[in-house]
């Protein structure tokens, strides 16, 4: 091979090398490069399917946002993604890998609904705050199990959080099929509707977007302050970036584990509460379209930064809507929408590579 290179004396080769400093320009350009590549490749892809790429891309990205209902749905779906991703980012920065936000979301939804349906505050203005607290506690409690196991027995939190998700789903299924089933619900596996005091107010009765979005806004700000400004946030990210340095400085790794898991559990539990007290109004076997898992992607698209997470959440929510939109308007199968989403995420994460690495041309010389 070396010989072949020498014969073609002027062959250009590229070498990947680490940048001395992460590139600021690239950090801004990476999402644009990714979008550009996605548009080009997907256009080819749509063309080979006999579709008009402009129309398809328009239907995917723009059409969902042209109506008020579309905008409402966009924010409604982005809100739990952003909320959960904020919580996850706190743990992820400290190398605490909570993969089970979905389960914590379900637990939060269950505890919140329990409070909403069965406590004697049905008509009180305190009901909604109590449900929120219950949701947070439910999610935290579910996340406390892997925290305890990792802290005391050094189990792998990735496995434990993931497995607990399936347990949470089964608990939910048991409740709605069994003890919590609505007696007046014609045997459907769902609970009774939450009382009005237990629901977030909507901005307009025609649309589903509700006031819980303000909670997400507050959590974004708190997350930013915690990760970027607080000393505790600093200590946790040292633990993630250089565990030996954290030990050297005397920062407790068990505190990082507990805070990382409890914060993400709390955020996921709160998101679960916001779902039942918002668009759902009751528990059913399926309460989340995988928000807990998608939020992991959102956290990484946002580079574990609160502001980036907001953008990432809006993007992923738009991808959900765009997928529905092309199915409805153009009759595309949902699998094509999934391929397209996959392509965008792939390019997005791949172009992040350019922030820390670069390609350098090397000319081979003949000897």
């Amino acid at each position: 091979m070396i010989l072949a290179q020498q014969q073609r004396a002027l062959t250009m080769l590229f070498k990947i090398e680490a940048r001395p400093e992460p590139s600021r320009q690239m950090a801004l350009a990476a999402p644009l490069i990714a979008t550009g590549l996605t548009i080009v490749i997907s256009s080819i892809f749509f063309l080979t399917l006999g579709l008009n790429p402009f129309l398809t891309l328009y239907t995917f990205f723009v059409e969902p946002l042209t109506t008020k209902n579309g905008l409402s749905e966009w924010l409604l779906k982005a809100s739990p993604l952003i909320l959960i991703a904020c919580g996850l980012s706190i743990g992820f920065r400290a190398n605490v890998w909570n993969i089970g936000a979905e389960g914590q979301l379900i637990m939060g939804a269950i505890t919140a609904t329990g409070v909403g349906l069965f406590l004697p505050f049905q008509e009180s203005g305190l009901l909604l705050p109590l449900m929120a607290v219950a949701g947070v506690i439910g999610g935290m409690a579910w996340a406390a199990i892997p925290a305890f196991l990792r802290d005391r027995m050094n189990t792998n939190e990735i496995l434990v959080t993931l497995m607990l998700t399936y347990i949470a789903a089964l608990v939910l299924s048991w409740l709605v099929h069994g003890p919590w089933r609505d007696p007046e619900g014609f045997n459907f596996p769902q609970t009774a509707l939450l009382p009005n005091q237990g629901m977030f107010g909507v901005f307009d009765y025609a649309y589903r977007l509700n006031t819980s979005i303000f909670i997400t806004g507050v959590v974004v700000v708190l997350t930013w302050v915690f990760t970027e400004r607080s000393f505790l946030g600093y200590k946790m990210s040292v633990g993630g970036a250089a565990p030996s340095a954290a030990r050297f400085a005397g920062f407790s790794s068990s505190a990082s584990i507990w805070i990382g898991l409890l914060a993400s559990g709390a955020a996921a539990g709160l998101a679960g509460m916001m779902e039942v007290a918002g668009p759902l109004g009751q528990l059913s076997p399926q309460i989340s379209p995988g928000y807990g898992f998608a939020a992991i992607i959102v956290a990484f698209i946002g580079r574990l930064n609160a502001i980036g997470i907001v953008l990432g959440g809006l993007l992923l929510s738009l991808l959900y809507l765009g997928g529905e939109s092309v199915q409805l308007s153009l009759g595309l199968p949902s699998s094509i929408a999934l391929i397209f989403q996959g392509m965008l995420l792939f390019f997005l994460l791949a172009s992040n590579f350019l922030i820390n690495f670069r390609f350098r041309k090397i000319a081979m010389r003949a000897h």
Partner: protein
Amino acid sequence: MAPRLELRGISKSYPGVIANDNISLSVLPGEIHAVLGENGAGKSTLMKIIYGATHADEGEIRCDGKLVPEHGPAVSRELGIEMVYQHFALFESISVVENIALSMPGKMDLDGLALRVREVSERYGLPIDPDRLVLTLSVGERQRVEIVRCLLREPKLLILDEPTSVLTPQAVQKLFETLRQLSDEGCSILYISHKLDEVRDLCQTATVLRNGQVTGETDPRKATSAELARMMVGSDLPEMMVESSELSNAPILSVSNLTLEAESVTGTSLKSISLEAYGGEIVGIAGVSGNGQGELAAAISGERITNAAEDVVLEGRPIGHLDAGKRRDLGLGFVPEERLGRGAVPPYELSENALLTAHRKGMVKHGMANRKKAREFASHVIDKYKVKANGPEAKAHGLSGGNLQKFIVGREIELDPRALLISQPTWGVDVGAAAHVRQTLIDISRSGQAVIVISEELEELFEICDRIYVICHGKLSQSLNRAETNVEEVGLLMTGIGSQTNDSGSTTEGFDYAV
């Protein structure tokens, strides 16, 4: 006679640095040729180019008069060039002969190979048992395996990269005998080092590198150490100022009867270690690497909690049960041997790294980190300790080893510790920065603080310490006054000969190489 190896105008650059700039040198058959330079002078890059592990941007390599095209390590071995790396490439879980077989061409014949290993090792005075597991070998023995592996291929040129950094003084002499024997038989040797005494003792020619350029070629047997140092550093080294001083009445830091199990199978357990450090003195801990230095440093610093609080006592207060942060609160400073990833967080700015331990200097208010104060502190350290960096925003991994070390040492000293533990203070640090760090340690000890230095460089310990302990197999010797001891005595203790009892297991990791 054509030179065995000739380099003409070798240049190689990496992003941001020119590692080699128009380097030429030639090595005659049978010559022991030193490549001398500070860390970062470009020695390792040059050797990698010769061995084919990386390629030069410009220049040519001739071997026995013939041009060597751009090549890889396999071609080098065909040409008779062999290299012993500073960091060994041995699989620990298999035997010596199996390791060697992996790098031999042709069909595997373990029994025949074992015979040849014995033969070669006896002929060159490098005794090793081919059937031992590498896991059970000491560092010195592992190096012997690497050398024997090269010798089996009957090299014409042997490259050794800093081979003595893991050896006792006695083992170094033994190694030199082997190398001289090889040279007498006509094998050329390229000897990379930054240790002037060794080069003057062993080598016939020395090529000195500084900042990637050749700054001189000389006969080291005729040159003085000062002349060589001047070529290496570019200026005269400052003389160390060591004043005598008053010791504190009671020890500031004491370790008593500390026993601690190793955390991993490759670690070393500490066996009833006792030491004392008084204010106003520098106490050294000598030893061949891997004899428990890492474990001892972690136990004193608080990165590991000891079994009993009384194992480590700071100014009369038991601290063995406290973590590193709490021990620092009480006045124990620590500089670890790994700067990146332990003493500093690599991708973080210096100001953020200031926060790592200096947060206790009023940089945290109501739970919020005060970035402005951290930047001011970092700037102060950069100025005071002459750290070459683009201000407090520079990333830690962008600094050279020496500058990052100056920053970390400065940061810990600015915390005003009562006792400072510093591990391998000048590892990978250039000569100028090393002198600065050593002088700083002397200065703070003379102002009444206790300083404990763990180092594998005996020269360094003899230069700055008032007393020296020696660690071997996890046990610590009695303290030796520098004025009353010498390199030979310390060297013997480093081999474990000075120790009285013989614990189980220590026979398999013996340092018979030295005797």
